């Protein structure tokens, strides 16, 4: 491939060296025996693109400098040029591990902004699906973490059970990954017939898998050797760094938005919050394993309690999608349908601001929305949990060896698309 010289921008040679550092060891000037190692941006253990510059003394890490931004795609700028319902397609690209949880968090924020209450059936359905997303996320995270320490069997076991969850999402909304299932005031479609049977079958298999995984890993001396006392963060530090979700709970922070700021149908659900006191990688593993059991319990309760009725809010409000029977049967329905997809003819919003946060699998996912009365957000800031988690990586890795970098990174479950947005 040849490129024309005119296209190149003149950048100072020093800057070029900063951008494209060779992946070799370099002696740090003036320090005797220290070397600099570039970890990433392309490394299997970073899952996507994170660049860590490690200053090494032998194999010990003296200093770690994280560089992020390789996956910055300007999502927040995009949000200002899309309607609220269009932007949902971007939210699932923001999290490629449990996309549907982001869909739900986004539309809960939008509904809080325009001040509508969704139907009971939708609340239960969203609760159920948010918990399935938690399973999807934790299965991947624990699976990857075990792969990182060389436990291939557990990885295959956990990914096997992740497959039926993806299949269930596919039958729910037609896509395995880019789900975009929610809409303002409801969802794109009701739950298909016989879908709950599939969920129940998955739950049954899940219990068995988690038991097997416990047998393989939880008291395994090799696994414990690699994970205990690695990447430790104390409770105070975790709070001060802005940590939330399972990683914070593994450090002993008693905080779960599902309990502390109940939303959707969580007040009706009976579940426990998993907390560990060690704050290390092993604690994070245990918290995630227990959360999967609790998620399964919530799913079973939601299936039992989910009421019949409408999924979307009343179509007279002109907020949710038009009912298909109305679209084909009446002129008002056709008008509603077209208006909902035309730019600047959708629902209007108050001139207001709102912060809405949900407990997504990775931690607190918040959306700060500023609206100016139109159908597009004036400003939509995403508070991604990974962004605040990764800040502490230098603290976590100090004094550890290179082999512990991969273990710590996978235990934080960093999602770079959410980190860089």
């Amino acid at each position, binding site marked *: 491939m040849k490129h024309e010289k005119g296209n190149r921008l003149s950048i100072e040679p020093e800057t070029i060296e900063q951008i*494209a550092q060779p992946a070799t060891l370099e002696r740090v000037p003036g320090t005797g025996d220290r070397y600099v190692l570039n970890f990433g941006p392309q490394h299997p253990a970073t899952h996507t693109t994170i660049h860590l510059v490690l200053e090494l003394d032998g194999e010990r890490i003296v200093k770690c400098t994280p560089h992020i931004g390789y996956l910055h795609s300007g999502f927040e700028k995009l949000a200002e040029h899309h309607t609220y319902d269009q932007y949902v397609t971007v939210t699932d690209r923001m999290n490629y591990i449990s996309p549907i949880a982001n869909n739900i968090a986004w539309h809960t924020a939008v509904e809080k902004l325009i001040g509508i209450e969704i139907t009971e059936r939708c609340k239960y359905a969203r609760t159920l699906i948010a918990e399935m997303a938690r399973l999807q996320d934790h299965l991947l995270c624990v699976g990857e973490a075990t792969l990182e320490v060389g436990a291939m069997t557990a990885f295959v076991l956990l990914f096997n059970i992740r497959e039926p969850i993806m299949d269930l999402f596919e039958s729910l909304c037609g896509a395995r990954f880019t789900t975009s299932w929610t809409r303002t005031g409801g969802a794109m479609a009701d739950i298909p017939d016989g879908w709950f049977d599939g969920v129940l079958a998955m739950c049954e298999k899940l219990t068995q898998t988690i038991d097997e995984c416990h047998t393989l890993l939880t008291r395994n001396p090799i696994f414990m050797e690699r994970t205990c006392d690695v990447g430790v963060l104390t409770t105070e530090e975790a709070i001060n760094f802005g940590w939330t979700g399972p990683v914070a709970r593994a450090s002993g922070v008693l905080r779960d938005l599902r309990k502390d700021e109940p939303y959707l149908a969580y007040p009706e659900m009976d579940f426990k919050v998993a907390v560990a006191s060690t704050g290390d990688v092993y604690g994070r593993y245990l918290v995630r394993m227990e959360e999967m059991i609790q998620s399964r319990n919530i799913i079973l309760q939601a299936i039992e309690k989910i009421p019949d009725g409408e999924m979307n809010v009343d179509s007279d409000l002109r907020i949710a999608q038009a009912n298909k029977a109305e679209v084909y049967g009446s002129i008002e329905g056709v008008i509603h349908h077209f208006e909902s997809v035309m730019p600047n003819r959708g629902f209007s919003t108050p001139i207001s*601001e709102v912060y809405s946060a949900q407990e997504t699998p990775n931690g607190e996912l918040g959306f700060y929305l500023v609206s100016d009365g139109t159908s597009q957000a004036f*400003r939509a800031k995403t*508070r991604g949990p990974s*962004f605040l988690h990764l800040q502490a990586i230098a603290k976590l890795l100090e004094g550890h060896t290179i082999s512990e970098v991969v273990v710590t990174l996978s235990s934080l479950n960093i999602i770079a698309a959410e980190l860089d947005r």
Partner: protein
Amino acid sequence: MNHKKSTFELLSEKFGKENFDEVAYAGGMTTIIVPKSILAEVVRFLHDDPRCSVEQLTDIIGIDYQGYAQETPSRFALVYPMLSLSHNKRVILKVWVAEEDMTVPSLTDIYRGANWPEREAAEMFGFSFEGHPNPKRLLLCDLFEGKHPLRKDYPLQGQGERESFRIVDRETS
């Protein structure tokens, strides 16, 4: 304790009522408007005082209000959603920042988690955080030097960064 004072009352008591303003939004969110000059002291008080004990800074949100539907005191604002875990209460502060003077005190010495959110707000909007330990750009590449993409006057298509991106091939790398 029979009457629990609100955060707004506590702040008014400590720093004087005339400094603060409280805005209630439609979604049930209440924001306390804090003048920029005393932001660091206010946050220090919220963090240390046991009646507030705001232990965690959730995020820092920069906003450019150019072209907004309502008149605003100044063009830019910073919103600090914060959380008190022991009281299970959210405190949301807002600081108006004028275009002429975009210096804002850094909160990194109180909350270590403020580090990256401040760097992000600085590069996206052009704020400069006084006392930040590492005020470098965080997410954007070198081509964005001096540009602030989340400002309202920055076009969605960009200003030619994509076209002029330096291509590294084997000969030149």
